[in-house]
């Protein structure tokens, strides 16, 4: 049995060494030190949101639901829901795209692509804190000074409590499968 384990370890070792060599040799190999997972939710805590931009790229704003609802009426605004699939299916802001924290990286990239031609991004979660990291990540990815990024204060519960427009059901066009 020891010989079997030794041979298994040997094969795994050969595979590991081969993988590292091939990865270093190929041009499109993954960077072992500078890799950043393109997730919608960064592991690092979100920076504190400011209400006004003070740099080249505008900071994330936090607005009350009623103020955010005014922005929603602009056809160049896009609304993103970052809550889990079950919460999204139960009810969400009308017309919102679903981009949960655990969505595949492709979904985050698709959301950034959707921002083309839009001038306002409205993000909400179950509360303000859930949406802020996603808003900050999308701001960083979009890299557009002209894009206004807004987080709905208090998240969906406050939006719902204010009797603002909601809809339910999954979001088939979002690329996030729902069971």
């Amino acid at each position, binding site marked *: 049995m020891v010989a079997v384990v030794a041979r298994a370890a040997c094969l795994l070792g050969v595979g590991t060494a081969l993988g590292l060599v091939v990865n270093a040799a190929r041009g*499109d190999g993954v960077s072992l030190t500078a890799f950043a997972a393109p997730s919608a939710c960064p592991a690092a805590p979100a920076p504190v949101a400011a209400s006004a931009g003070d740099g080249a790229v505008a900071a994330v704003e936090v607005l009350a639901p009623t103020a955010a609802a005014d922005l929603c009426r602009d056809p160049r605004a896009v609304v993103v829901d970052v809550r889990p699939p079950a919460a999204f299916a139960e009810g969400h802001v009308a017309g919102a795209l679903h981009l949960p924290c655990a969505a595949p990286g492709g979904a985050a990239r698709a959301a950034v692509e959707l921002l083309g031609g839009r001038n306002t991004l409205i993000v909400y979660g179950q509360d303000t804190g859930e949406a802020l990291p996603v808003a900050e990540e999308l701001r960083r990815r979009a890299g557009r000074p002209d894009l206004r990024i807004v987080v709905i204060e208090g998240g969906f519960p406050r939006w719902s409590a204010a009797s603002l427009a909601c809809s339910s059901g999954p979001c088939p066009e979002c690329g996030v499968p729902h069971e």
Partner: protein
Amino acid sequence: MRRAARIAGALALRVGVGGVLVVAGALKLRAPGELATQIANYQLLPAAAPYLAAVLPAIELVVGLAVMVAPRPWRSGAALAALVLFGLFEGAVTAAYLRGINIDCGCFGGGGGPITWVTILRNLLLMAAAGTVLWLERPREIRAVAPPAVP
């Protein structure tokens, strides 16, 4: 006849287990950056994602080929390595499923689809197949055969 059927069954199992690993490894080799993202999405060891993305396809290829075509003494080691790999995959997909993380499986590179109970069951079957290969290819003890009695 029975021995022939057993040999054919063992060969089919080896080709099945090894083939799945070779195909999965080859597909993952195409886009290591995408694979690293898929591994990071599991939210288990995000810092290790680029390293796993770099080595996992090659490990699957080496182990898969060894299960299929290596000399007998190495096949049992390859089957054990395959069992370990499938066990790790099973742990990762089960953890993601139980935590309700809505991600692509990444089992065969991109577009593997979301993790469901079918993914978990498929990995369990692969573990069972690898375990069976390990049992069939286990080193046999050389039994001392007593010489026939001389009348």
